[in-house]
Structures are given as structure tokens and as C-alpha cells.
């Protein structure tokens, strides 16, 4: 059966002044799958997540999420559409002044009329699903990097979004926590029965969790396909990236 597309970038160009970040970039995100985007540092991978979350608009082209074009959409409509997506930030971006429980429950408190008791129950469940118990009353500055990231995941999934975007979830973590985070992403995708996009540099983690892999280079997706197809790709750019070789078409 042909996979259905949940989100896509179509001919997206994004530039800030003379600095071109994305150039005629095309990408398809398959519904119900984990798509990992790889590429050099500063290639614009995180920018793709922000486009998919409607936080920035492309200079030209279109960004579709669940059939809705996010471009030129009024902020009020975007707020509505953002209920379908959720972004887990690289450094969690939890609000310093709130406890972990308040942070995770914030979207529910602001967007629903659920009782405090019900919200507490959902937040506890979300924290449980990322393996964090008993930290409801902790402040963000009391947690380790890995715990912060998982708390960020809990906030991202608490509203049960259809699309979860993970920005470099394993960067800067030790191998054990990296494995834990990777397992968590796989488990959360299954739990939500939704779609996920992950930006990562960790190849071991990527090939464990990805259903599809896309490689971004010089503002465009130069390789895209199922995990195994990319792993065995003869594309010299992909090969150089996967092997980490300094010699090849990618200038060092």
C-alpha cells in the first residue's frame, strides 16, 4: 500500500537577507512513520522543524500539514493548526519559573477546560511515559540534560498531537541516555499512533528509530528514502556523511 503523506515542504526557499537557508527544498513526511533528517551542522535542519510547526514562514513555496497550507495563514488559524503538531526543543525550552508539572500541564491548562485533578492525572501519565516519575514539583534547573529533554517530550506529547517534531533530541548526551531517548521516541510514536520527525546527528540512533531518512545539503534534500535504502545508498554525499570521511564531495 502506498504510504500517505501527513506533511510536506514544496519548493520551499527561505532566506534572511542574503543568507539562503533553504533553496527549493522538497520533503514528504509519511503519516504514521518516523522520518529522520540528517545533514551538516548549520544546514537548516532545525529550520525545517520550525517551518512544519508554523513558527516561521518560507520566503517562497508551501508547507502543508495534514492538508493545510501553513503559509500566509493568519496567526489565529495557525494557533488552531498548532494543536495538531508539537515541537520538542533541543534544550527542552521549559519555562524557568514553572515546575516540571506546571510546564507539562501548561498546554492543557491554557487550551482546555479540564479540572486540575484531571490535568494532574494526564501530566503524571505523560511524565510516566517518558520514564520520569516524582519530578512534578521539581524546577527545570534541578534536572540533568537527559531528564530535561524527556520532560520536554512529555510537554510535547501531553495534548496527544498528530505530529511530534524532535529537534536534536540526543545531542550532547552519553550513549546510555541516548539509547533511552531513542527508545522513548519510538515508544511515544507508537503510543500516540502519530507521525514524528527527528533531527539528529547520531547515526546509530537514527538507524534504530527511523522509518525514512532524508539528507539535507546546501538547502535542499539530496537523498530521501526508507532507512535501508539510505544506509546502502551509492550517493557519494550520503556515503561520505555516513562514513564520516573527510574526503568526498562534501567540503570540510
Amino acid at each position, binding site marked *: 500500500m502506498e504510504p500517505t503523506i501527513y506533511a510536506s515542504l514544496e519548493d520551499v526557499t527561505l532566506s534572511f537577507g542574503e543568507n539562503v537557508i533553504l533553496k527549493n527544498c522538497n520533503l514528504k513526511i509519511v503519516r504514521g512513520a518516523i522520518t529522520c533528517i540528517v545533514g551538516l551542522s548549520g544546514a537548516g535542519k532545525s529550520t525545517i522543524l520550525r517551518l512544519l510547526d508554523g*513558527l516561521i514562514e518560507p520566503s517562497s513555496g508551501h508547507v502543508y500539514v495534514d492538508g493545510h497550507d501553513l503559509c500566509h495563514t493568519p496567526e489565529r488559524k495557525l*494557533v488552531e493548526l498548532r494543536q495538531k503538531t508539537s515541537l520538542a526543543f533541543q534544550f527542552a525550552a521549559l519555562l524557568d519559573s514553572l515546575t516540571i508539572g506546571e510546564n507539562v500541564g501548561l498546554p492543557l491548562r491554557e487550551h482546555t477546560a479540564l479540572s486540575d485533578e484531571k490535568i494532574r492525572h494526564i501530566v503524571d501519565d505523560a511524565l510516566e511515559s517518558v520514564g520520569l516519575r516524582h519530578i512534578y514539583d521539581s524546577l527545570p534547573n534541578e534536572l540533568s540534560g537527559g531528564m530535561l529533554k524527556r520532560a520536554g517530550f512529555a510537554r510535547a506529547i501531553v495534548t496527544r498531537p498528530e505530529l511530534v517534531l524532535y529537534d536534536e533530541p540526543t545531542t550532547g548526551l552519553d550513549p546510555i541516555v541516548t539509547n533511552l531517548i531513542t527508545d522513548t521516541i519510538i515508544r511515544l510514536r507508537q503510543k500516540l499512533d502519530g507521525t514524528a520527525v527527528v533531527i539528529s546527528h547520531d547515526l546509530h540512533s537514527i538507524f534504530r528509530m527511523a522509518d525514512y531518512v532524508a539528507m539535507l545539503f546546501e538547502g535542499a534534500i539530496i537523498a530521501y528514502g526508507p532507512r535501508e535504502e539510505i544506509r546502502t545508498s551509492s550517493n557519494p554525499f550520503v556515503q561520505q556523511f555516513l562514513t564520516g570521511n573527510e574526503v568526498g564531495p562534501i567540503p570540510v
Partner: protein
Amino acid sequence: MGILERFGEKTIAFLEYLGGIISLIGETIRSLVHAQIRYAETFVQSYELGIGSLLIVLLTSLFTGMVISLESAQQAVQYGIGSLVGGAVTYTSVRELGPMLTAVVVAGRVGSAIAAEIGSMVVTEQIDALRSMGLSPVRFLVVPRLLALAIMLPLLTIFADIISIVGGMWIAQAYAHINPASFISSARQAVGFDDVVKGLFKSFIFACIIAFVGCYQGLSTRGGAAGVGRATTSAVVISIILIFGTNFIMSYFLFGGH
């Protein structure tokens, strides 16, 4: 780069700034009209921004009232118009120095804190996180701070006026032997209730300036920790310049300077 080019760049930057501030004011008014107010956060901010500034406002106002009295009382007694010192101190405090000095002190203490806090939230992606959750940073951050300042700055000004007059009265008695009854009688003749109201109206406008400039500088922070520092400094400098400028304009129209 030529002078014309530099002038053009500065003009564009100024218009961008103006447009940004106007847009922020518009969005804030929309939130207020739709009653999108976080009351608990407004209360917390009122306490932190208002009560936290009380001591420093009282001290600066006390010394200001004392120095006005010191400068004017002995001279006035020499010329036989000692009975007018109470009026002079009260008049200056209620109409000009009370609202303006309180605003300047609060701009330095609170405006910088607002810019630094929001700026830090920008560089640590907390503002993006709010937007990603479908929450308006204006409703979440700007509205509570604006309301807190709009309520607390006029209240602080009342305290500043009182302590300034009390300080002035004490110095007038101590150094020029002007008795408090004469001081108060002169004050009551010189200043009417409408002067007090107009002074508090000035405070309200200054509160809006401090809140909007602080929040805007914070929200437009770029470039990490250095950017937060720049935003903080700019918030204070711009607020103080605007406070002095609008004070002149308001005095001109409110107190019949025209």
C-alpha cells in the same frame, strides 16, 4: 558608507522599531479587550514590580523632597516668603518630580528586569515554545507586566509624593524654622486635587512606556547573552528618554503651559 546611506539605515531602523512597538501595543489592547488576562500572574508581577520597588522609590523621593526644601527654604526665609516653601515643595513634587523620578527609578529597576527576563526567554527558545504551544507571548508575558505597572506605578507615585513632602517639611522646620502648620497651609493653597490626578495620569503613561519598551526590547533580543545585555541597557535608556520627553509634552498640555 555615505552620510545619506547611514541616515537612511537609521531611519529604517527607527521606523521598524516604531512599527514593532505599535504592533505590540495593538496586540496587547486586543488581549485586554478580549479579557485574556492571567490574573494570578498579574498579582505576582504587581508584587514583584511594585512592592519590590517601594523602598528605593521612598528613599529617592525622601532625599529629593529634602533637597528641594533645603535649596528653597533658607532663601525664601531671607526674602520673607518662607510661608511659600510648603507650596513650592508640594507643587514640584506632585506635578513633576514625584511622577517622573518614580518612573525613572522604576524604569531602571523594573524596565531592565523585564527586558532581561524576556530576552533570556527568547535566547533559550522559551518564547518559541510558548508560540509552539499556541500561546501568545503577549498575553502570557506582556499583559500581566503592563497591568502590574499601570496599577503599581501610580500607587508608588502617591507614596513618593507623600514622603517627598514629609521630607521637605522636616528640612524646612529644621533649617529654616518654618513650622509644619504653615508648610501644610501653603501646600494646600498651591496644589489642588486636579494636580494630584494629573500627576497620577502621568504615572500611568510612564508605566505604559516602561512596560512596552521593556517587553519589546526583550522580545526583539538577538544574539545570546550579549544580546540580553544590549536589550537591557536599551530598555532603560529608551524608557528614560521617552519619560523625560513625554513628561514635557504632558506638562505643557495638562498644566496649561500653552
